[in-house]
Structures are given as C-alpha cells and as structure tokens.
C-alpha cells in the first residue's frame, strides 16, 4: 500500500465522468452510463432500506415470543422488506445499472435507442420508490408483498392504496427500460455484431426485456382492480360482494412468477461473462446458453399456478402446472452445466468476479433444485407457505440475483470508475457472503419441513435453535454486504488506475478506455469474430 493516490488519469479526464460537474449535468443527462450510475446509487439506497427491515425481522425472531416488534410492527416490517426488495431493488438491479451501462458498450453503440426515455425511466423509478417508501413508513401496510384478497381489499388497514399506487408507478419505469433494451439490441448493433456474436449478457437482457414489457402491464391492471374494490367496493375479488378471491392470485402470479425470471436472467447473463473472463475460455455451447434464456422467458409465463397448489384451484390444473414447473428448470440446468464445462481446461483466475460467479452457481443450483421439490405437488402441499419456501426463494434471489449483482460490481467496477479495488478484500467479502448466506438460509429449509409457517411473529419454542442459527448468519451477511461499500468507495480515490482491460477479458466494452469516453468509442468498432474469443491455451508440456 505504498502507491501514491493518482488524482486523475488522462483517461478519466476524457471520460464520461468528467463530461460535466454540475448537478444539472447529472440529473439531466441522457448518457446511458451516467443514468446507470444514478440507478446504482438509488438501488443501493433502497437495498439497504429493505435490508434493515430484514435485520429487524431476524432480530425479532431470536426469541419465540418476538421481543422487539409488536404484531403489527412485525407484519409491517416483512411487508416493507418484500415490497422494497422486489420492486425497488431486485427487478431494476442488474438491468437498470449494468444493462444500461454495458449493453451499448457491448454491442458497439454510442447510447441506447431512446436516451431521453432512459432518463425518464429513472425519474419514474425514483418517484415511485420514495412514494412507496413513505407510504410504507408513515401509513404502514401489513398485507405482505403479495396483497392477497380479500384481506388487502376489505380487511387490511393502513396505506394499501398508496403503496400499490407507488408500485404501479414504478412498473412504467420497468416497461420503458425493457422497451429501450429491445430496440437497442435490434437496431444499434455495430457492423458485424450478428445475433450469433452477441455476448450472452445481451441475450439474457433481451429475454428479460421481453418479460418486462409483456408481464408488467398485467401487474398494473391487477393493482388497479384491487384499488377499485378497496375504494368503490366493486365486487371483483371479495366473495361477499360477488367477487372471486382466487382471481387475484391468478393475475398476481401471472406477473409475479415471470418477475422471478426478471430477477434471475440478468444475473445469469452476468455469470456467463464472469465465467468466460475468469477462465479465459469461450462459453461452452453458446447457442444452448443463449436459447436457454429465451426458453426460460417463454416457459416462465406458464408456471404461475404452482403458487396455488393448496389454494383450491382444480387438481388437474395443479398437475399441469407441476409438469411445466419441472420443464422450466431444464434450461436453467443447461446453463449450470455449460458454465461448469466452460471452466474445463481454462485458465482460472480466482479473483473476486469468478468467486462471486462460483458462489452464484452453487447457491442458484441449490435454490433451483429445492424449487424442483416445490414443483412436486405432494411435497409442496406440506411445505407451501412455510420457511422451506422462504429458504428456496432467498437462495434464488439473494444467493442468486444478489451474488450476480455483486459479481457484476466487482467485474465492471474498474471499467465504470477506472480504478482497481483491493482484490484481497473482494475475495474476503465473496467468502463471507457465501458462508453467511448459507448459515442464514439453510436452517430455514429445516424449519419449513418441520412445519414452521412463514410470516409468523411468534413461534413454538421447539423452533428456536434453528432461528438463532439463521439470525447469526444474518449478522454475518450484514457485515459482508457493508464491506464492499467500504473498499469500493475507498478505491475511487486510492485505487490504482485500472487500464482499459484489467482482466484480459474479451468483449467490446474492454476495448475502450476505463472509464469510457462520453461517446463510448472514438470509432465505431467493426466486429469480425465470435463472442468470447480467447487465445487457445498453450499445449501441454508433454505434447
């Protein structure tokens, strides 16, 4: 640590960061890279807000009688946690930050197709975010992020209407981002950047965007119907005024199950980049991995009924949804096997990006396989709405999506900021996250199978040991999530200049300066080879 802080490199002076210093130059920017930074800061804020609610929940569950929060306080805390994490962190996380920053760079474009819509989408996101947050904090809502009727329409007190208004608003931001990516990928690819040469990151964002554009309107419609019943007593969902409570669940999961793929597909794209760059190898089975993203998006629309196996829906419908839910796992499995095969005979640099990618593969695989268990109706009937389900979706969303997000941060940080962070600290935080995560959520699988329901503020004493283990893991996880904030911010001033390609990675984004100039490329590149072109490894010493 004898290096003298470099105040500003020539690349930084010419970069998008230096294109303007006024607040106005940031808040009215149409540069996709600056908008990505705006998103990065805001989603990080909402992440820590939602994580604090989780910390409260885990503290409260240390004892069976729930010492810290009241019933109502607990119910509001898990609602705040779910709503903020799902709509204001997980869904925009990778697409709005890294998708925004990287898609134009990766395809050799100067910006996204609609730069001003891009900025608008951030403003809508921010307005929706603060609107929802204040409604949750001041009014308080205790319905859970799922808003099941008729509880949410006729029984729940609190600011239900305000919160669903906020969620409806933020939906428009998702739609605009999705639309922008679809058009960008179709129309702005550099000469020679054919579909078959597109980085997998772009393929998975393309699939994600399709879901964003097709599913989000259904959520808006559903929430508006909910508001109509709550406000005007229109009998839509409440049977006492002629409605059907299951209708809400069908509509809600028709959006919310694909929304899970909105969260995980971008992370899968990230992991593909991290694995290939970390191993200096071409992705094994390019077309299988690319098409798997599209297959997940397509089949993902047909599995919503697996959230309703015990709801009273037809048994035949349950069997069909069970089958389709097993089928949607196939393309995910294909990806996992292909990533593993990519590492074979590679040159693996065990730097933070690859470590996060490997953490992702491990945790996602485990979460996905427990999802197969849930797809089997006979097992789901027992563990539905228990901690088994909680553990399953946290393995996918926290173990998967958040690890993917942090992997992306550690991989592209030098590109975005021009500075290297401490690799040692990066490795430590990857390790801590992997350990803390498993300690937090593995006990919850056991709790669930033992029969502890979710959303319980108090619980029978026999569940305490496992709950204490889980809370202990959560405290490690909290430290592990704060750690990168420290060394990454430190690197902004004190990190060594990264140079254009610190990882020796392929991909157009590494062919321009770090940080990139305002218009990305001095000359639009011409692509003449496939994605992930790495030199053939040297032959073995013996032949």
């Amino acid at each position, binding site marked *: 640590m004898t290096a003298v802080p470099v105040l500003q490199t020539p690349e930084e002076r010419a970069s998008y960061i230096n294109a303007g210093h006024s607040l106005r130059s940031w808040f009215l920017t149409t540069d996709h890279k600056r908008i990505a930074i705006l998103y990065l800061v805001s989603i990080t804020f909402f992440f820590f807000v939602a994580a604090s609610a989780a910390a409260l929940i885990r503290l409260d569950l240390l004892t069976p009688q729930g010492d810290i929060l009241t019933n*109502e306080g607990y*119910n509001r805390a898990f609602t705040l946690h779910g709503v903020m994490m799902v709509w204001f962190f997980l869904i925009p996380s990778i697409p709005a930050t890294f998708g925004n920053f990287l898609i134009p760079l990766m395809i050799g474009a100067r910006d996204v197709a609609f730069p001003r819509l891009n900025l608008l989408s951030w403003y809508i996101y921010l307005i929706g975010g603060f609107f929802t947050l204040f409604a949750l904090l001041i009014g308080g809502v205790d319905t859970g992020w799922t808003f*099941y009727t008729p*509880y949410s329409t006729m*029984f729940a007190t609190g600011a239900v209407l305000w919160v669903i208004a906020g969620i409806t608003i933020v939906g428009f931001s998702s739609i605009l981002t999705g639309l922008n990516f679809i058009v960008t990928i179709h129309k702005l690819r550099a000469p020679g950047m054919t579909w078959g040469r597109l980085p997998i990151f772009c393929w998975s964002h393309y699939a994600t965007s399709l879901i964003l554009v097709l599913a989000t309107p259904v959520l808006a419609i559903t929430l508006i119907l909910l508001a109509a019943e709550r406000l005007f007593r229109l009998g839509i969902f409440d*049977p006492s005024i002629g409605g059907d*409570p299951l209708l809400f669940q069908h509509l809600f999961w028709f959006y919310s199950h694909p929304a899970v793929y909105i969260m995980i597909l971008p992370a899968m794209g990230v992991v593909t980049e991290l694995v290939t760059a970390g191993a200096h*190898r*071409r992705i*094994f089975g*390019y077309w*299988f991995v690319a098409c798997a993203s599209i297959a997940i998006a397509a089949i993902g629309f047909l599995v919503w009924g697996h959230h309703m196996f*015990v*709801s*009273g829906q037809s048994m035949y419908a349950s*069997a069909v949804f*069970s*089958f389709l839910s*097993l089928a949607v796992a196939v393309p995910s*499995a*294909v990806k*996992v*096997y292909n990533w*593993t095969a990519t*590492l*074979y*005979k*590679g*040159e*693996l640099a065990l730097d933070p990006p690859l470590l996060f990618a*490997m953490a992702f*593969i491990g945790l996602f695989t485990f979460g996905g*396989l*427990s999802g*197969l*268990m849930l*797809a*089997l*109706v*006979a*097992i789901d*009937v*027992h563990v539905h*709405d*228990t901690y088994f389900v909680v553990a399953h979706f946290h393995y996918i969303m926290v173990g998967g999506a958040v690890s993917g997000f942090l992997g992306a941060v550690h991989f592209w940080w030098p590109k975005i900021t021009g500075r290297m962070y401490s690799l040692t600290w990066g490795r430590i935080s990857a390790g801590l996250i992997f350990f803390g995560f498993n300690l937090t959520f593995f006990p919850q699988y*056991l709790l669930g*199978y*033992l029969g502890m*329901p*979710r*959303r319980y*503020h*108090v619980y029978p004493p*026999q569940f305490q*040991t496992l709950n204490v283990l889980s809370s202990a893991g959560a405290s490690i996880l909290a430290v592990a999530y704060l750690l990168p904030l420290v060394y990454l911010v430190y690197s902004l001033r004190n990190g060594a200049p990264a140079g254009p390609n610190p990882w020796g990675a392929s991909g157009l984004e590494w062919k321009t300066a770090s940080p990139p100039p305002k218009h990305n490329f001095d000359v639009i590149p011409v692509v003449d080879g496939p994605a992930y072109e790495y030199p*053939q490894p*040297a*032959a*073995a*010493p013996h032949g």
Partner: protein
Amino acid sequence: MMNFFRVWPPEASEHAVRVDQLFLAFSALIFALSWPVFILLAVFAIRYRRGRNADRSHAPSHGIWVETGWTIIPFLLTLAFFVYSSWLYFQTGQPPASALTVEVVAKQWMWKFEHPGGQREIDELHVPAGQPVKLVMTSQDVIHSLFLPALRLKQDVLPGRYTSLWFKALVPGTYALRCTQFCGFDHAVMGGRFVVMRPEDYARWLQQAGTDGSLAQQGFQLFRKLGCSGCHGADSTHRAPKLEGIYGAPVPLDGGRVVVADDQYLRDSILYPAKDVAAGYAPIMPTFAGQVSESDLVRLVAYLKSIGGQPQEASR
C-alpha cells in the same frame, strides 16, 4: 428436552410416510444431479488455476451429445417423480364415502370444528385413529389455510366457498394445527392442537363434549326458526321446491342448466336465492345474507343432507 432440537416432524399417517419417502428419494436425485457440479467447480479451480501447468490442449467449445444428455436425462428422471407425486396428490382428492365429516369454519383468528353429532370445539380438533375423516371448510372473512404438519397436509380455506381435505390418521397423539395463509394481526397464533385418539377414546370424548343435538337436528331448529319451513315444508303449498331428497340430486334450473345440489349450491341458494333459480318456480325467496352465519349455514345444510334420501358423494 427432546423437543428442543427436532430434525424430523412426526408422521401420523401413511400419507405422511409416503411424502417423506418421496422427499428423501428426490433429495437423493438432487444430490446426484448437483454434486458433479460442486465437485467439478472445486477440481477445476485447483487444477486449472491460472499459471499452473496442466494439460489444456483440445479444450472443447461445444458438444451436441453431451448437451442433449444433460438436457434430457435429468428431466426424464424428474418425470418419474412427477408421476408418483401426482398420484399421491390425487389420492388426497378422493375421500372414501365412509369418511366422517367434520365441518370447519375459520375466522380471524380462530378455528371452529363441528362434529356430526353437534359437538363443537375451538382451536382443537379431535379425530379417531384409523378412520377416514373429511374436513369441509369455509371462512367467514379472509383466506386462511389449515396446516396439519403431522399429516403433511394443508388446504386453503376460502370465504364464500367450501374446500375440503381428507386423511386417515393412524398414530394416536397430539400434534400441531396451524394457519399458514397470512390473515392479519394475530395470524401467528391462529392455531392449536390436532389430537388423534383411539376410537374408543374418541367415542368417550364425544360423549363428554356434550351437544345440543346433532348438527342436522340443530339445522332443523333453524329451518323452523328462520321460517324456511313456511314455504319449503312438507305441508306447504307449491310456492317453493320440496327439499326432501334434494341433497346430491340434479336440480334443473331456469334457462335449462342442471346443477347438482351439493353443499356449495345449497349454501349459495340460501344466501343468494336469485342466483340459480330452480326451474318452474318464481324467484320470490328473500335473501338470508347477513342473517345466518357460516356455522348456521353448516347446520342448515346438515339438515338438508339428513333428509336427502340416499347419501351421495357430492362433487365439489
């Protein structure tokens, strides 16, 4: 204390044993499919670490057969489990005709169970071991869910609709009974005990529990008190359909449709008489919505069942 750190929930029925077997066998499959990945990640990380000498020649970039293999084989293996799981699930939808029916009414935040003899209990359910029991459930307010972990069974309980659940508990004992669908303020304490008793103990319990007459008898009292018998009674004029023998029988409706008079139809006809009017009758019956509770509806339907002629398994 044995209960302090339990790793496996008690199994009180054959179905529970089967679900556990399915769970364990499927876990084995999952480990078989995932361990290669975990082990290879570790092996590759060590063997192919950058700068380490290793044979890296002829590294493959694709392989149609290996791709096809790992696409199809795991899927086919899971399909075998899908078939068994679905079979197991369909069993839980077909109660034997001899099942003892217990009516369940849920509301924020309590469970009410009513046995056929009219015995009532709150937050506790006593059932005889070795005999099929069918729970017919409805909610008075929001959606609840009855969870009996020792049986590995769960069913949502909806307002305005009957759902059902059946089981044959084999091992006498006291087990948990919980609500698993978030239902508001006191959701976490909406539960109690599920007691499986030897049949002779159950018979004794029924006697001690006391009753104001069977559900059907109580229903008959209501039938008279609410004035239903004025029009539907045996000696009344032809203003209303006769109800003897109606339970489980097909009812022709105005407009040509025919429905089976099951619990749901009878309940809805009391609350919303204009919804499905029997053919040949004027829609003159007043609604009883707001006047009769779900528990009273259960009694009225029990009475109609008792005068229903031959018992017939109604489709729900």
